[in-house]
């Protein structure tokens, strides 16, 4: 019985190590969205509501205070201008005038922009951080979600194929 007691640390460690091994497979920055496979959530903010969205399209959550948004902006401009993809923007937790100044400075790739000053739509969309991009198909079903700034690789390998499906 006393000997068993000395086995406890080893047993605890074995469980811990097994768990750590399982944890290795996952990617902690990939946050699954329950929205994928569902129709777009019901929301309405100043300038944009659920009824305005016509797929196939992208919904891009951005903010003027967000540096990565600035970084991905040229890619959105390119998608809208060169690939003729419809993009809706939601300015998340941002003052409307700051968001307008942001778009005036960098160009506006969005068909319509909603101003979600208090982050209400962000809750409906399950936003975990800006920027975030959702792809909708023709039926208005979310087919893809990306957290963080888009990159040319993500657009080529994930986003465009998801839209094309």
């Amino acid at each position, binding site marked *: 019985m006393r000997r068993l007691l000395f086995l406890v640390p080893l047993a605890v460690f074995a469980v811990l190590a097994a768990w750590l091994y399982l944890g290795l497979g996952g*990617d902690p920055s990939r946050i699954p969205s329950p929205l994928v496979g569902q129709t777009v959530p019901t929301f309405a903010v100043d300038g944009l509501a659920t009824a305005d969205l016509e797929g196939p399209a992208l919904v891009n959550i951005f903010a003027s205070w967000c540096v990565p948004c600035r970084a991905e902006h040229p890619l959105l401009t390119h998608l809208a201008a060169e690939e003729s993809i419809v993009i809706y923007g939601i300015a998340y937790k941002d003052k409307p005038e700051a968001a307008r100044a942001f778009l005036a400075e960098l160009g506006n790739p969005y068909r319509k922009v909603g101003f979600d000053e208090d982050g209400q739509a962000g809750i409906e969309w399950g936003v975990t951080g800006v920027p975030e991009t959702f792809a909708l198909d023709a039926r208005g079903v979310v087919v893809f979600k990306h957290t963080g700034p888009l990159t040319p690789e993500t657009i080529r390998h994930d986003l465009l194929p998801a839209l094309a499906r």
Partner: protein
Amino acid sequence: MTAELGHFALTLALGLALLQATLPLYGASRGQTALMELARHTAFGQFVFTAIAFAALTRTYLVSDFSVAVVVQNSHSLKPLLYRLTGVWGNHEGSLLLWILILTLFGAMVSLFGSSLRETFRARVLAVQAMVGAGFLAFTLLTSNPFQRVWPPPLDGAGLNPLLQDPGLAFHPPLLYFGYVGLSVAFSFAVAALLEGRVDRAWARWVRPWTLAAWAGLTAGIALGSWWAYYELGWGGFWFWDPVENASFMPWLAATALLHSAIAAERREALRSWTVLLAIIAFSLSLLGAFLVRSGVLTSVHAFATDPERGIFILLLLGIATGGALALYAWRAPAFAAGSPFRPVSREGALLLNNLVLATACATVLLGTLYPLFLDALDAGKVSVGPPYFTATFVPLIAPALVAMAIGPMLAWKRGDLAGALGRLWAAALGAALAAGAALAYGETLAALGLGAAAWIGLGALVEWAERLRLGRAPAIEVWRRARGVPRAAWGAGLAHLGVAIVVAGITASQCFQSELILAMKPGDSAQIAGYTIRYDGTAQVEGANYHADRATLAVLRDDTPVAILTPERRFYPVESQHTTEAAIRTTFLADLYAVIGEDDPEAGRTVRLYHNPLVPWIWIGAIVMALGALASLTDRRLRLTMPVRRRQAAEA
């Protein structure tokens, strides 16, 4: 050529480590002196070759050799010399090499100072140390070779994350690694003792100085890291319960427990198998920290570029080292005889309480850090465990230990007199009541508890010194004689407890009495915070070595008299295309006035955040006092390894 030389030296170090990990063990079991002696020399050899490899890598940074991959990824020719140098360990590959350098340095030190160890024991310690070394050397060479070349070499490098271009952070990893890796010696001693089946007083006395040195490094390293977070991240906080911070805090808690239980093991042969277990756990938590930071299982602001393949390798190392040691423990430790009996109220009892609290606190932090990972493994969804969990569990857990901290050192071994100890602590109790009362007058119950505890511990340490010296009850000459007779370890312990008191006061006051003000200011605007008037005088553009900055000028006035100018900056590093904030801090050592600036809005003005943080500097002052306490203990003659064992001195009774 330099890179190839470094690569070659590292390979040679691995060869020596493999020799040292096997032959001396065989020699120790067969009684062959020549094989056991081999370890003493290979330990030096490993250190020398690793140092050559480290010097080679450093040179590639200093001359900006952009044919070496890590230099391309982490350096830039425009970067100031200091940061080109510290950039050596500012990334995964280089920091791993630094880790190995310190690991082999400790091996060489054991070889140098270990002449009083039993021959077989020394051979086994060095062999275990070499197993750890071989594991990390193989890890570096197989998955993270810092000497990888790129072809064709680019014209310039990608630069170093500007947040890391900072003197505080430059020296944070070496100190922290000194602590992490120093615990490997305690681990090697524990495994060697299990191999020999023998844990005696001498063993505990050998383990203590290594643990003390590692603990001092960990304390200083963690403090430096938190200081960096305080002034560089720009939100006035100093500890975020981030997974990587926790990864350094857990070994610290385990090492603190180990320091205390080793005292009981040395003096009374009590808690021996527990002490061995703690030595294994402390280093295992260091390894776990390395795993968490480098494998990509958890996200954190400080995590290195991560790679699952590396994760598997470290997990394998962790499995072999910890799993092997714990299996050995399960096999050998039941044979250790129990120590001398003691009453619950005694010095041993107090040390046991300390250990229980620290071990539980450590387990709480471990659970909170790994919980998101557990849920993810179960596919039960994503969560993040934040400061509220840690404050709610850690703080109440640690509170009883804070109360016991002042009493423990006043108790006698074996059977203590609680009433007598409390009676002698009346001054500390009075001080605690006054501090708590003062805080209550401000209506802060939490502050009353925290400041009361701080006064209790701090004054308790002073009372304990006064008792030893019979201060105020014996003639001055007698006090002086006693002061010279008090062992350094006792001064050190008191100093470390005093440091804890200072840290507790700093944390409490900064949490409970912080003032914060966020506003948009235009030149000429003024704001009031904590009795100061802050006037914004405008922003100027300044050029740094490798950045442009907006530097705001904030005049600090008290009763219309200027007392200071604060110049917070918002920097842009073009190479990395990244912004950083540089806080401006004016400290009186009793409180900090802290200012950071945000973006400028043509209409509203510039965003300015102002904080008044009472007693915040005490957190770092206290940590320094704690580390000094450890260093004072290290100079105790009883712990000097080459000195003959001395009997316990009368003054310590």
